[in-house]
């Protein structure tokens, strides 16, 4: 059951009904009960591991606090013990299959084994997200930024909060847990903002991402079958797809939480309008970037111990970020590439909305375009089924591009999806929607809507809201595709 299904809509209506019929003081129980129900509907195995993690985190943090009061070293040992177990479970489920493949390869080099798999574990939806939340909670307790939670229901609701379980955002306990402990009241302003987020999120996911997914899959199924122009369009579309899919999910998640009176932090802020790679990472998957910065980059020393160590720290952080996305060389390289790009990125003055002169605007567009191209090249590795496929695609893109710039090349580019000129309409439609989204995001970042993109009273936002509803009804592709980030 994902957010883009009718089944989920019915489920959420029931949750909303139960939530607002329950007295304010007991609403956190409804949140927990609905999270548990959501988990059970997803997968029983997933829910069992989730409950174990909650119980372990709750008692672990309390024991850690008690031991620290006896002796600091005991608290430290306990902290690292808890972190090791939490991360160990995550690594076990996420990377054992990858480790098994690598081990098999090594064994085959030495002609020791031809067995295909040493271990094979099933995927655990949401594991990454609640594990990282648990790590943040334990770390905050260890750093004495908060007391260990006495309220088990609040902690369980925080860790298993169902709008965030499939693909985040990974909200820190200082914001989300505190709200779950307090009064969960209906807040009209938040509800209005949430409706805008919901409409916009569903539009991005159901309309844009689901419209272009077939095209992208065709290209990546056989990269050798297409000319350079088609490949170029395919990789451009993947950049759009992953953004609309993931930011769409995040906006839906924020909207759902908001309708329950809970305010969740933004996870995206028009990342493809970033003027450099650093800026991109301030706008893309903000909650994960924040986590990596706070719990990996800064503990490693950040930028305080000289430029060599700074470069090392950046590379380590991005490689871990890559590996977090999945156990594959492609993700490893993607992380490494972004690490390198970040190191090369000069500390530039943050672009703001004051692009008054023509020159400023040209420079800004140049920077935005360059950043987008670099990010798009990175996505090739992120999406490719193997490292070799990514290299083949990029190689063909360069070597066969000029040959494909012709009427036949354009025709092939349009017709990849259905193989005939009927493809023209979805091609034009997706193009128009992408343009519309670009204009909206540009206005939200550099234009008249900067700083008020979520203000419901604004006339432009209301028109956007209305348009989103129209597009969802007429062009929405319901329940056909999962969310990309649910795999991570």
């Amino acid at each position: 059951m994902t957010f883009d299904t009718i089944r989920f809509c019915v489920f959420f209506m029931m949750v909303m009904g139960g939530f607002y019929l329950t007295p304010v003081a007991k609403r956190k129980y409804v949140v927990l009960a609905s999270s548990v129900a959501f988990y059970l509907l997803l997968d029983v195995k997933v829910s069992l591991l989730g409950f174990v993690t909650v119980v372990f985190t709750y008692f672990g943090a309390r024991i850690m606090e008690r031991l620290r009061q006896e002796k600091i070293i005991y608290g430290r040992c306990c902290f690292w013990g808890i972190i090791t177990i939490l991360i160990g479970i995550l690594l076990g489920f996420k990377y054992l299959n990858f480790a098994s493949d690598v081990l098999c390869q090594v064994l085959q080099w030495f002609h020791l084994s031809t067995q295909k798999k040493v271990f094979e574990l099933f995927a655990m939806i949401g594991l990454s997200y609640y594990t990282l939340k648990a790590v943040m909670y334990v770390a905050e307790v260890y750093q004495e930024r908060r007391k260990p939670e006495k309220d088990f229901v609040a902690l369980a609701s925080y860790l298993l909060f169902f709008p965030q379980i499939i693909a985040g955002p990974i909200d820190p306990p200082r914001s989300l847990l505190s709200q779950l402990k307090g009064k969960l009241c209906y807040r009209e302003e938040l509800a209005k903002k949430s409706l805008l987020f919901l409409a916009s999120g569903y539009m991005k996911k159901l309309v844009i991402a689901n419209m272009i997914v077939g095209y992208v899959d065709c290209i990546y199924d056989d990269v050798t079958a297409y000319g350079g122009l088609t490949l170029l369009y395919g990789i451009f579309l993947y950049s759009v797809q992953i953004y609309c899919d993931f930011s769409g999910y995040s906006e839906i998640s924020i909207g759902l939480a908001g309708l329950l009176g809970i305010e969740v932090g933004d996870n995206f802020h028009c990342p493809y309008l970033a003027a450099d790679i650093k800026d991109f990472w301030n706008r893309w998957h903000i909650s994960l970037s924040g986590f990596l910065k706070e719990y990996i980059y800064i503990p490693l020393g950040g930028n305080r111990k000289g430029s060599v160590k700074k470069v090392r720290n950046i590379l380590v952080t991005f490689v871990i970020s890559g590996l977090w996305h999945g156990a594959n060389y492609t993700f490893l390289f993607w992380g490494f590439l972004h690490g390198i790009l970040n190191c090369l990125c000069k500390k530039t003055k943050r672009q703001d909305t004051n692009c008054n002169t023509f020159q400023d605007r040209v420079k800004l567009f140049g920077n935005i375009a360059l950043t987008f191209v670099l990010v798009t090249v990175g996505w090739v590795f992120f999406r490719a089924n193997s490292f070799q496929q990514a290299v083949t695609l990029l190689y063909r893109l360069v070597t066969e591009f000029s040959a494909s710039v012709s009427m036949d090349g354009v025709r092939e580019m349009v017709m990849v999806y259905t193989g005939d000129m009927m493809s023209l309409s979805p091609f034009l439609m997706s193009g128009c929607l992408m343009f519309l989204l670009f204009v909206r995001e540009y206005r939200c970042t550099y234009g008249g809507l900067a700083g008020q993109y979520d203000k419901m009273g604004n006339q432009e936002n209301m028109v956007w809201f209305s348009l989103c509803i129209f597009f969802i009804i007429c062009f929405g592709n319901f329940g056909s595709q999962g969310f990309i980030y649910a795999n991570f």
Partner: protein
Amino acid sequence: MKKYVKYAFMGLIFAMVFCCIKNFVAYRLPGKSSGMQAAIQEKNIDYLFLGSSLFRQGIDINIALEETKGNCFIISYNGNQPVQMREELAMLLKHQVEIENIYVDLYVYSAALRPAISDKRFIWDMDTRGKINVFSEMVEHSEAGTKEFVDFFISANNEYFLFYPIFQLVGRNEFYKGGNLRETPGRTRNVLDHLETPGDRERIHEAQKQALIDIITMCKEQGIHLTFLEIPKYYTLEQADYYQRLQGELEQIIEGQEYISASQVGFDNRNPENYQDLFHLSARGRREYTKQLLNVELR
């Protein structure tokens, strides 16, 4: 909140109006070079080819016009099933299109499926009655529900409707009297021999069987000369046991009717240059097959 409800309602109303216009008006839009509406505009058709994409890729309209010296037309939708073909024929007759000869695609893969729509152009081209009939068949035999209803009457063809003028401008040159004008290249033996044949289908579906019988009855009643036609598939597919079994089943259903099997025409279905995949002919194969077919038929 009032403002929010107002704007949400506006979006909803706009969407509903858009969908209603599409469903009730769009199929009447002029300027088509393929599909049902283009066939209706013809008024008199001497040779009508009614089938799936196999017909679009397998019958060369220019050669057919030249060889038969009559008015030919190809109606083809991807995966067109007998259930849909029955509605298409009914709609043509309802619009008083005079048909002399009709060739109906005998395609095992579409006839072995439960009633379903593979080509949304069918929904675009059909009138409201035809849409309702096919959807009713889907409900009866395929347990189609809300999602299918939304797909059928709300989601289908919206982008096509929105960009209709542009599509007509660019796309209409792809077809002439429903025939595909594209020069689709053939494949190499290596590619075709390595393509997997589709999986087994249990048997011909009852609803499709009934639709074939209905087509025979309709043609008899209207005095239309009916011939069933099997487009030659690549030899690896034709040799598959289940393909032959299902084809045999189809032949039993149409027993007593005129029928031109793939083998009767003498087409070289081992030449990879004649095929773009296991099912569809290339432009070269299309020309060769059409000549051979009409040789057999007009002899």
